[in-house]
């Protein structure tokens, strides 16, 4: 049985074979018992697939869902306003331009810290403030260090309280974000949350493990950074 005809069989079953080829295939089905047997099997398979029954999950997922929607801080909002543009299904808002510019400053600021680590001076391209990456010295795991062009700096602890406050600010401001951006940020936050949950579970089993504790702190710091970035995007420019 030639492969080209077995492949054509799939297309024929789906009604997607060109007429001339379909006619030839149908002729072959009458003289090739192997091909005909394959046709019967594939037809049965398609029918079984279409009739597969839906099955509930083994455990009740509702408690987890309820917990998330009750504590998620997602106050019921009106429908998302989606403005349709030609050739694009979503539009971004003008305030996000300012946010993107602020992100640019933050990006430039990352270079400030980086340059500081490398022991060289650096400028922030004329910006007034700059967000900086995390500290890495002893006892600094998870901390965020912010540097300003005037040489001052401050440290933010990646504590659960800090995360909670940032999440609340983001929840308050998310209506200003385009739904596509919301989706990306939510998925990325979900990624980090999964990592945090796994790290927490590991620390619970091995609380004295220094590496695990640092890994958990680092992962929480990642969440803080992402929330900071998201809040920049969601905060209207003044």
């Amino acid at each position, binding site marked *: 049985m030639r492969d080209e005809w077995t492949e054509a069989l799939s297309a024929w079953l789906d009604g997607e074979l060109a007429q001339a080829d379909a006619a030839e295939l149908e002729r072959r089905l009458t003289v090739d018992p192997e091909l005909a047997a394959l046709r019967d099997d594939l037809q049965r398979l398609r029918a079984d697939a279409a009739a597969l029954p839906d099955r509930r999950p083994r455990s009740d997922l509702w408690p987890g869902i309820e917990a998330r929607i009750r504590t998620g801080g997602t106050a019921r909002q009106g429908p998302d306003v989606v403005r349709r543009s030609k050739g694009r299904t979503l539009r*971004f808002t003008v305030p*996000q*331009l300012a946010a*993107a510019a602020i992100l640019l400053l933050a990006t430039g600021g990352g270079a400030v810290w980086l340059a500081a680590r490398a022991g060289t001076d650096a400028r922030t391209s004329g910006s007034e403030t700059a967000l900086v990456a995390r500290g890495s010295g002893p006892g600094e795991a998870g901390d965020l260090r912010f540097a300003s062009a005037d040489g001052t700096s401050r440290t933010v602890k990646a504590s659960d309280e800090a995360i909670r406050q940032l999440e609340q600010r983001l929840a308050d401001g998310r209506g200003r974000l385009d739904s596509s951006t919301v989706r990306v940020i939510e998925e990325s936050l979900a990624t980090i949350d999964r990592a945090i949950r*796994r790290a927490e579970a*590991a620390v619970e089993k091995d609380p004295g*493990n220094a*590496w695990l504790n640092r*890994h958990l702190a680092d992962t929480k710091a990642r969440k803080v950074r992402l929330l900071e970035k998201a809040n920049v995007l969601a905060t209207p420019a003044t």
Partner: protein
Amino acid sequence: MIAQLSAALLAALQVAPAPQMDTTLAVAVDGRLQIQNVLSGTVRIRTWDQAKARIAVRAEAKDAVEIRYAEPVLSVRVRPEHLESDVPTDFEITIPRRMSIEASGVEMELDIEGAGGTVAASTVDGTVRVSGGRGTVALNAVEGGVTLTDTEGNIALNSVDGDVSVRRARGVISIQAVDGGISLEEIDSGNVEVNTVDGDIVYRGTLRDDGRYFLSTHDGDISLAVPEGTNARVTVSTFSGELDAAFPISVEGDVDGRRLSFTLGSGKAIVEVSTFDGLIRLVRP
């Protein structure tokens, strides 16, 4: 996705109508190009060895974009009254090779080639592709990914949702990603810090005697090329992952039950590799 977007970019530039604006002006060769207010569009920047800048724009209207030059800053921005336009604004800009570049936008695809100065760019939804860059290269993309090649200096890359790829780079490197893999090839650096939450990490480059290298992912594999003759103290940390070394190593201790260390040669460089749940592969280049 990056391949698809690049194809779309190419298609847009090749079949698009003639630009509404095409202007050339004299500029300082070591000045700064600032591109702002790109709510939606593509920005394509090339360089040349002339003390001029050429700016071609496809936009809704001839006057949609404002160009201002106050030495040394060349400012190119979409006018506020045109920001609400449904039509994206596409730029093709050619500048002196040494000119610095700053670009920020929201739904912005950025493609820079031949940059000889500093580059700082930020986009919310769009890929950032830079070839070149000297001094400082700081790129930030929320969704879309970052690609950087042939660059030298202090490199800081941030991506939330998208892969980061760096090739033929020299200098201090810091890369942060959340949902994306990080790939570094042909790297010459003594200071590398790479971190992602969900994605693989690949490092192929120098491991200098005086260097410090930190590669960390939560959910992903790490592949680290270790050249023959490397002198490094290597620490591998993982919660439920595995280590696979292509050469013999002599483990010196199982600290905390999740970390192990070994020394190569004189042990001068510091190499820390960490994944919560993934495979760590140590290979020869």
